[in-house]
């Protein structure tokens, strides 16, 4: 029985760029010490992307290998929490993998109309803008 695991180091978090005033991304916990201490946790902080179009914000997380039922998207006040856990047995060894990321939402979103879907290992959460936020676009004239 052999289990070979390959983890690409490039998967690690890259530097946080300036991000939009609407979102406050939680830094991955323990990431600063991850290489020094073994915290005995399998929890992953998946790569997170934020996008916007005219009517919605979109949050995308790469979480391959989960079943839809193993993923939870929760709103805790203004904090949108993405988490999940899955058990698997490979080579007779049972293991559990979990992930956790969160994003703070601004007041300018319709918190009660958030939708989520999971396809090809990518979780997409759609956060609609409020009407006021949509109307805030200012045209620039010559």
């Amino acid at each position, binding site marked *: 029985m052999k289990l070979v695991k390959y983890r690409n180091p490039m998967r690690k978090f890259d530097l946080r*760029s300036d991000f939009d005033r609407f979102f406050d991304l939680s830094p991955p916990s323990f990431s600063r010490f991850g290489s020094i201490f073994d915290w005995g946790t399998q929890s992953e902080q998946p790569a997170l992307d934020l*996008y916007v179009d005219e009517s919605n914000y979109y949050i995308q997380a790469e979480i391959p*290998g989960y079943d839809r039922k193993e993923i939870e998207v929760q709103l805790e006040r203004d904090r949108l929490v993405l988490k999940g856990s899955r058990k698997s047995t*490979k080579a007779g060894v049972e293991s559990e993998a979990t992930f956790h990321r969160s994003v703070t939402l601004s007041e300018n979103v319709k918190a009660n109309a958030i939708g989520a879907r999971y396809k*090809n*290992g990518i979780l997409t959460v759609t956060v609609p803008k409020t009407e006021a936020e949509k109307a805030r676009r200012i045209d620039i004239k010559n």
Partner: protein
Amino acid sequence: MNELANQPLKSEKNNSQGYYRPHYQIEEREDETVVWVELPGVAKDDLNLTLEKRDLILVAEASNHRPESWKVLHRESVDRTYRLRLHLGNYLDCEAIKADMQNGVLALTLPKAEAVKPRKIKIS
């Protein structure tokens, strides 16, 4: 090094030309070897598997999972082309490879050749 040579599957050491080697796990079972390859964002149609002699080559594109109208606010993921080359050991049956893609994970099932499967010997 010796240990590597004894493994049923060998993957190429480095990824050149901007290819990205996906995470993968190998499980040895009694009569088959299963390889799980993590390919988030890859649809079944974007996956290309070819067999060159005893090399199994996987190429997959993971860049088209969002519409063009979306503007980027913050990105941690990267658009990438995955590439993985696995050399299959002699005792695997190349003709009987099965591939199954689910939730961004590809499961490759490689049965062992009949000749190396454990079999019972009758005592007369």
